[in-house]
């Protein structure tokens, strides 16, 4: 049985979207379901996603920053993707080393709510990955044993990978973004 289909039957309400960009099955799920789904993926004998490859944060400051497939999801789920503000997300990459299958899981939360469940009880590897995500995005992983900054200095007061922190000095006048930076619809 197909992995995604099996997860869909078991979690009919938690999955918001399914896609397969560049060959990797990708699920967008409700963040409330993360813990239960990860345990299920870990323990089911025919799934065995027991290797956490990586985990990272995402930030979409407005609706228009969302990729097209997520815009569709957002329109159907205004509770997770409120139209007036953006979202934070966490992207998990899991690997079943027995059948050599990868799976990507994404969960999002409105900007006003930065809490995500911690996976440290399931994967020891999640410890530093979640600390890194906290360090750069300010996402608070509930149940993490030691959620402190890891790469940046402890005195830092902001979360640098959030999109509102421009990489270059915002007061500079000599660089016009229309020609030298990210522009809407510039493909």
């Amino acid at each position, binding site marked *: 049985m197909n992995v995604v289909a099996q997860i869909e039957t078991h979690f009919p309400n938690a999955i918001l979207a399914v896609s397969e960009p560049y060959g990797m099955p990708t699920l967008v799920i409700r963040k409330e379901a993360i813990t239960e789904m990860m345990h299920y993926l870990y323990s089911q004998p025919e799934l065995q996603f*027991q290797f956490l490859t990586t985990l990272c944060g995402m930030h979409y400051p407005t609706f228009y920053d969302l990729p097209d497939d997520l815009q569709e999801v957002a329109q159907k789920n205004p509770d997770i993707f409120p139209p007036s503000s953006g979202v934070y997300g966490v992207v998990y990459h899991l690997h079943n080393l027995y059948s050599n299958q990868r799976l990507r899981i994404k969960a999002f939360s409105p900007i006003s709510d930065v809490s995500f469940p911690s996976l440290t009880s399931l994967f020891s*590897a999640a410890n530093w990955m979640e600390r890194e995500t906290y360090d750069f995005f300010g996402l608070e992983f509930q149940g993490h044993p030691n959620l402190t900054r890891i790469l940046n200095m402890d005195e830092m007061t902001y979360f640098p990978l959030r999109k509102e922190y421009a990489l270059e000095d915002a007061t500079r006048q000599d660089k016009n973004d229309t020609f030298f930076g*990210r522009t809407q619809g510039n493909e």
Partner: protein
Amino acid sequence: MSETNKNYVTVNLGPAHPATHGIFQNIITMDGETIVDAVSTIGYIHRAFEKLSERRPFYQITPLTDRMNYCSSPINNIGWHMTVEKLLQVEVPKKVDYMRVIIMELARISDHLICNSILGVDTGAFSGFLYMFEQREAIYEIYEEICGARLTTNIGRIGGFERDFSPLVFERIRKFIKSFSKTLEEFESLFNRNRIFMDRTIGVGAISAEQALNYGFTGPNLRATGVDYDVRVSEPYSRYQDFNFIIPVGSQGDTYDRFMVRNVEMWQSLEIIKQALEGFPEGSYHADVPGIYLPPKDDVYNNMEALIYHFKIVMGEIPAPKGEVYFAVEGGNGELGFYLTSDGGRTPYRLHFRRPCFIAYQAYAEMIKGKMLSDAIITLSSLNIIAGELDA
């Protein structure tokens, strides 16, 4: 520590301790000679590569990847090029794949030889280090002939290479294969069955397969525990499926097993290079993708299309689709992954590096608990934690 009847000593190992060869700080609580507790502090050479990448065109990110695992920078460079090629759906010719395999295997050898020879130094055997470093010099001379750089190589381009291998490259590789086999044989005869070295490393810094997987270990560190996971085999890239090689595994997951796995891998890398040279295909050294691969300089001055492409590529205007890719290569220390999210702009919307060192190093505190300080040093050395990759 709450027990008041014990006299614990806190040792601040690092960040600039010579025995840690890198910027690593561990605050170690010791009961006599035994480590009771350890806290690792990292981030001393953090350079915010993920943030920097969000403002750079794809080709300008390659020099950032150099500075992650700087003992095997070509693997990082080529891994990044292949990630972008996957996003842009560029097919490279067979010859490019073979050139990449040769370079990546040379890089793997240079990575492993540093780790193993320095493990020798940490256990008190200096001569192996000197023999091996001569060979690293030979590898760097090959890089130099290919791309002009030695340590932070910035090798190749998205879509292939900037120039073909010159006859001197082949000459140097053949010479290296010959001399390195001898050196490695000599090196192994100094260490593999050396009583002192074995007593010093067997059973030290051991980790079980279950624990290693739970901690996200990959690469030689994982294979030393007996798990045969290698990205080159599980998801072959760059035509690794054309080559015959074995994946060495250990059984105990200790320092000695990690050492032996790396030694065998160096022999296997040599085999792969030999096979690649034997079956080295004819053809172009880059993909035929004018909008992505820089045109030759002559054409830029004499041909309008080439001039336009040149400017567009240099300004980062390559036709990047919207989408997200995860691509992994087998780096010197394990699965080096790139998670690239593109919004169609000239820079990544978000780029995340899966750095094997960062993920494996969190197990270090647990691995050294209950051991001696001198064991902690060689455990760190045999895990081959590279500060650049740890902190990104």
